[in-house]
C-alpha cells in the first residue's frame, strides 16, 4: 500500500514537471485563462448600452419631443442620425448604421392632444434578434412610463392596476453577475479536459509510454498518476478565477465556500474521467484534441452557460441531465448569488458524483484495455 502511494506520488510529480518545466506550457496554463476571465467578464453581457438609433420625426410637436427626450435620456440608446424622408429608413438599417429607427407620424402630437390613441412606429434590425427583443423591452418600459405621466398630466384616469417588479438575488439585473460565475466553470472545464485528454497521447507520440509500461506500475497507478495532476491544476486554476471574480468583478459570494469546493471537486472528477477516457482512446494528440473538443463544446452549450436550459426542446433538456457542467453551473450561481449551502445543493451533488464514478470506471476500463 505504502509503496503504491509512493509510486503514484512519484508519477504525479513527473507529470507536473512535464507540464511546469516547459516555460510555454506553464504560461499557457496560467496567463490565458486569467486574461480570458477579464475580457469575457466585461464582454459577456446582455445589458445594452449606446445602441445606435435614428429618428424619423414627421411630427415635431410637443409630445414627440417629450418622448424623444425620454429615449435620449436612457443610457441604453444613442442617437446617430435624424432622417428626413421614408426612403432613408431602409438603407440605414440595412447597412447597420442604426439598430433601430423610431418613427413619429405627422399627426402624433395632434392625435394625442385630441385624446385619440396613437402609435409609435419602431423598426428594429432583426439580424440579431436577441438584441432586437431587448431593445424593444427597454423601449416598452420607457413608453409605459411616458403613458403614465401623460395620463396624469392630462387628467386621465390612471390604469386600474400597476406592476411593482422586484428582482431577487440580483436587484439590478446585471448580467455580469450571471456570466462571471459561469466563466469560472467554463475555464475550469477547458483547462482540465485539455490537460488530461492529451496526457497519454503525448507520451505515446514521444515514445515514453512504452517506458512507463516496463516499470512496475500497475494500470490503476498510472491512471491515478494521470488523474491527480488534473485535479490539482483544476483546483488551483478554479481558485484563482474565483478570487478574481470576487475581488475584481465584485460578484458577491453569499454562500459557503465548502459548498462551492464540494461541487468543484465532484465536477473535476467527472471531467477528468472524460479526459482520461479520450486520452486512452486517442492515438495521436490531434485525435485527443478533437475528442476534447467534441466533449467541451456540447458541455458548454448544453449547460445553461449563455442560454437557459428551459428554452431547449424537451429531448435536449433530458440530454443535459448527463452533463456535469449543468450541475456545476447551478452550484456556482447558487453559492455566489443565492447564498446556498451544502445541504440545499444535494440534488446537484449526487448526479455529478454518479457521473464522475461512471466516467472514471469507463476510463480505467479503456485504459486497461489499451495496456494489454
Amino acid at each position, binding site marked *: 500500500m505504502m509503496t503504491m502511494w509512493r509510486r503514484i506520488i512519484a508519477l504525479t510529480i513527473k507529470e507536473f514537471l512535464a507540464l511546469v518545466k516547459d516555460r510555454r506550457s506553464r504560461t499557457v496554463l496560467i496567463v490565458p485563462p486569467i486574461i480570458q476571465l477579464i475580457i469575457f467578464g466585461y464582454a459577456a453581457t446582455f445589458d445594452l448600452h449606446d445602441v445606435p438609433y435614428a429618428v424619423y420625426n414627421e411630427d415635431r410637436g410637443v*409630445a414627440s419631443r417629450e418622448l424623444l427626450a425620454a429615449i435620449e435620456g436612457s443610457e441604453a440608446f444613442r442617437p446617430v442620425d435624424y432622417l428626413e424622408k421614408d426612403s432613408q429608413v431602409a438603407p440605414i438599417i440595412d447597412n447597420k448604421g442604426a439598430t433601430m429607427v423610431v418613427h413619429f407620424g405627422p399627426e402624433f402630437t395632434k392625435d*394625442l392632444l385630441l385624446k385619440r390613441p396613437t402609435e409609435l412606429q419602431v423598426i428594429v434590425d432583426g439580424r440579431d434578434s436577441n438584441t432586437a427583443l431587448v431593445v424593444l423591452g427597454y423601449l416598452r418600459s420607457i413608453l409605459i412610463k411616458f403613458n403614465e405621466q401623460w395620463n396624469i398630466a392630462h387628467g386621465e384616469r390612471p390604469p*386600474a392596476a400597476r406592476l411593482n417588479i422586484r428582482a431577487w438575488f440580483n436587484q439590478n439585473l446585471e448580467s455580469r453577475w450571471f456570466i462571471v460565475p459561469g466563466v469560472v466553470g467554463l475555464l475550469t472545464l*477547458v483547462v482540465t479536459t485539455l490537460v488530461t485528454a492529451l496526457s497519454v497521447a503525448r507520451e505515446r507520440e514521444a515514445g515514453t509510454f512504452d517506458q512507463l509500461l516496463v516499470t512496475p506500475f500497475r494500470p490503476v497507478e498510472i491512471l491515478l498518476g494521470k488523474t491527480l495532476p488534473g485535479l490539482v491544476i483544476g483546483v488551483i486554476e478554479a481558485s484563482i478565477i474565483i478570487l478574481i471574480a470576487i475581488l475584481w468583478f465584485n460578484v458577491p459570494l453569499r454562500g459557503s465556500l465548502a459548498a462551492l469546493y464540494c461541487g468543484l471537486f465532484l465536477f473535476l472528477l467527472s471531467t477528468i474521467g472524460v479526459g482520461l477516457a479520450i486520452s486512452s482512446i486517442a492515438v495521436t*494528440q490531434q485525435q485527443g484534441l478533437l475528442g476534447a473538443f467534441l466533449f467541451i463544446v456540447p458541455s458548454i452549450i448544453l449547460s445553461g452557460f449563455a442560454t437557459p436550459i428551459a428554452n431547449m426542446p424537451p429531448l*435536449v433538456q433530458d440530454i443535459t441531465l448527463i452533463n456535469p457542467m449543468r450541475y456545476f453551473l447551478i452550484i456556482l450561481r447558487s453559492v455566489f448569488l443565492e447564498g446556498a449551502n451544502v445541504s440545499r445543493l444535494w440534488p446537484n451533488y449526487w448526479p455529478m458524483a454518479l457521473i464522475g464514478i461512471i466516467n472514471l470506471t469507463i476510463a480505467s476500463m479503456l485504459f486497461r484495455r489499451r495496456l494489454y
Partner: protein
Amino acid sequence: MNGNVKYPYLRRTEKQDSCSAVRLMRLRGLMRKEAYQIIRDPSSIGIAFLLPLVLLLIFGYGVSLDAKDVPVGIVVENPSSQTESFTAAFSGSPYFDPMTFGNIQDAEQAVKERKIIAIVWLREGFGRDLLSASAAPISVIINGVDANNARIIEGYIQGVWVTWLEQYAASTGQIQKIPVSLEQRIWYNPEVRSRNFLVPGLIAIIMTLIGALLTSMVVAREWERGTMEALMVTPVSVRDILLGKLIPYFILGMGGMALSVAMAVWLFDVPLRGSFLVLFGASALFLVVALSLGLLISTAAKNQFLAGQAAIISTFLPAFMLSGFIFYIGSMPIPIQWFTHIVAARYFVSILQTVFLAGNVWPVILANCAALVIMAVIFLTLVRRRTRKRLE
C-alpha cells in the same frame, strides 16, 4: 531564330519556366503527402465533417433565447372575479405555465428551490384597490440570477398586464386610455426566431474551429516528429511547404462549410436571401484567415500540446464571446470593442447574418471582406516570416 544565344535572357525565361514546372511538381508532391496523412489519420476528416455536423445539431437545437412555458407562481390572497380574470390571462399566454400557491411563503420557497422563476402576488386588498382612484399594486418577484432571461420574462409579464388592463376596462364599460402604443417591426426576422440569427453565427464559430484545429497541429507535428528537418534538406521552398499545407486543408474546410450551409438551409430552415456566390467567396476568404491563424500558432508553438491549447484559447473562445454571435458588441466597454476588431470571426458573423437574413447588402459585405483580406495578409506574412529553413 536561334535567339537563345543572342538573347541570353530568353534562356533565363525558359529556365524559369522549367523551374515553375518543377515547383508545381514539388507542390503537388507535398500536397499528396499531406493528403495521405489526412486519409490515414481520420481525425482531420472528423474535424472537417463530424465536428460541424455534431456542433450544428447541438447548437441548433440547444441554443435558444426564446423563453416559453415559464413556470410562474401565482399567489391570490383574496380570490374574486377580478383576480380570476387576471390569472386566466396568465394561463392563456403561451409564455407562461402558471402554478397557484396558497400563500407567499410557499411561493418564495419554490423560487429558492428553482421550481418557479417568478411570483405574481395579488394581495388581500387587490379587489378593493381596483375600484379606488389609485392604481392597485401587483407585486412581481423575479429570480434575477439569469439577468437576461429575467428581463425577457419581465417583458412577457408586462405584456400580459397590458392585455388584461384593456380587457378589464372593457368589462367595466370604460375605455382604458393608452395614449401611445408601440407598433414594432422586426426586419429580416419578423417572427423573431432566435435560430435564424444563431445558426449563421454558429457557422462562423464552427469554421473558426475547423480552420484552427486543422492546421494548428500540422507544423508542430512535423517539428515534434523530426520530419521538419527532413523537409528542410529537400529543395522545396518554405513557401511551397506552407502552400502544401494550406491547400489540402482549405479544400477540406470548404467541404465542411458546404455541409454547414446545407444543414442551415434544409434542416434548420434558415432563409438564404443573399446570393450563394457571395457566401462562397466570403467563406473562402474567411477560411484562409482561419487556416493561416492555425498555421501561425503551429509554427510558433512547435509542440502539439501547446498548439492545441493555444488554438482553443485564441480562436474558439474569442469567436464564441467576442464575435457578436450572442453578445452585442456595441454594449461592451470601449477597449474590448477595439479588441474585437482582431477577432476574425466578428467580420464573418456579420457577413453571414447579413447574407442569410438580409441579402446582398454590399456596404456591409465589402467592409467586412476588406477587414478579412487585411487579416489574411497579416497572418500569412507573419507565418512566412516565422517559418525559416533553419534549426535553432
